């Protein structure tokens, strides 16, 4: 029986007694066979990793199709409650701003909110993936090798001028705790106003917080809340803590 078929049967748990003996003996005595078994076992893990990346991309597509409009209900009926609630809210905010009982610890705020942005733009795309330098950079990034990933993203941006590379370079730097270096990149990324600019705004706000540049962070967080999509809820929470 061919080695490949024997390994397949082993994986499926369908080896007969005789085949099992043959398998064990080959595993012990043939280095080529044991290498092949190791390769298939690694392939199983790698294919799984790629398959989950693909599923994440699929889910992002599903999400983009879902209509996120909030449920409409008669505003009129709730008008007086809304007015009352707004007054109370304003009073509370004014009180908190005036007394400022919780001076925010910006390091903590940053640490509990920062998480490197997922690789959504690109590619670790299956098949037809010819842009191998970009692939290499994202592989480093996904494998949490942030220092090297940042270098790769920088080199790639110089060549391709693709704006999203700035966002990923900055994220790699943030993850590597090089906040000061990340900030100008995020500012530059925002100026491109590409489809990831909301993400960029969020990370720039976090970087400002970490650097105790709270006023600049508040402006960005307010914009995020106004735009009302990515990280709106988290931005609102941060604003409450910063104000």
């Amino acid at each position, binding site marked *: 029986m061919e080695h490949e078929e024997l390994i397949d049967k082993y994986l499926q748990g369908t080896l007969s007694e005789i085949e099992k003996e043959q398998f064990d003996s080959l595993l012990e005595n043939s280095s080529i066979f044991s290498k092949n078994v190791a390769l298939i076992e690694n392939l199983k893990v790698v294919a799984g990793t*790629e398959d989950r990346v693909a599923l994440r991309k699929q889910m992002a597509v599903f999400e983009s199709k879902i209509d996120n409009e909030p449920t409409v209900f008669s505003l009129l009926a709730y008008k007086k409650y809304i007015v009352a609630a707004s007054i109370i809210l304003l009073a509370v905010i004014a009180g908190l701003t005036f007394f400022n009982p919780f001076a925010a610890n910006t390091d903590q705020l940053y640490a509990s909110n920062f998480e490197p942005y997922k690789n959504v733009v690109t590619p670790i795309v299956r098949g037809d993936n010819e842009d191998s330098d970009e692939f290499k950079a994202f592989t480093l990034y996904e494998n949490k090798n942030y220092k090297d990933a940042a270098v790769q993203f920088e080199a790639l941006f110089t060549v391709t001028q693709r704006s999203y590379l700035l966002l990923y370079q900055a994220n790699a730097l943030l993850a590597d705790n090089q906040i000061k270096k990340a900030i100008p990149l995020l500012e530059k990324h925002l100026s491109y106003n590409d489809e990831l600019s909301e993400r960029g705004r969020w990370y720039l706000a976090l970087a400002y917080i970490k650097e105790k540049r709270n006023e600049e962070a508040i402006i960005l967080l307010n914009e995020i809340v106004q735009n009302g999509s*990515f990280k709106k809820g988290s931005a609102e929470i941060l604003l409450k803590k910063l104000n």
Partner: protein
Amino acid sequence: MKEELTILKKGHHQALEKLYNEYRSSFLQFAKKYDLDDDTLIDIYQDAFIALREHAINGKLDSIKSTVKTYLFSIGKYKIYDHIRQQKKTVSYENTIEHKETSTIEEVFEEPQLTPEQQLLRQHFNRLGKRCQEVLTLFYYRGLTIDEITQNLGYENKNVVKSQKSRCLKSLKELIKNPRPHGT
């Protein structure tokens, strides 16, 4: 339930989307009480959905007594508590009744860290053609049989799939032996 397992394992785009959406709205409804923002909840839901598919592929769902939906929600609930714990929003996480309930799902899936060897293999794997990646993934990772793959990918007969799989494996070994330089 068998139908749901098949969808998760074979993963036809439309069927998977239907299943994703079907559970999504009730999950968000159910998770409202935890006071987390929508982005976080959707992230958690997606992680739970990935874990669910992982368990379907590993055969862990074959013998569950609850429905797939209940199982998914238990994973989601576990992940919500985990998230809250990391954010240190609760004090008595360990003692909550909910935590005890959800901890019956012994292993909620964690993404494995690839070894350096696997990272390299991943690069070679990504250089294969799309069809090759698909066949190898369905066979080695999802555990579909050659017959199922033949049907799934619309091949004429199973011998075509069999030889395709062998060819793809050979190409992968070639790439390992003689890695092409980047950009070629």
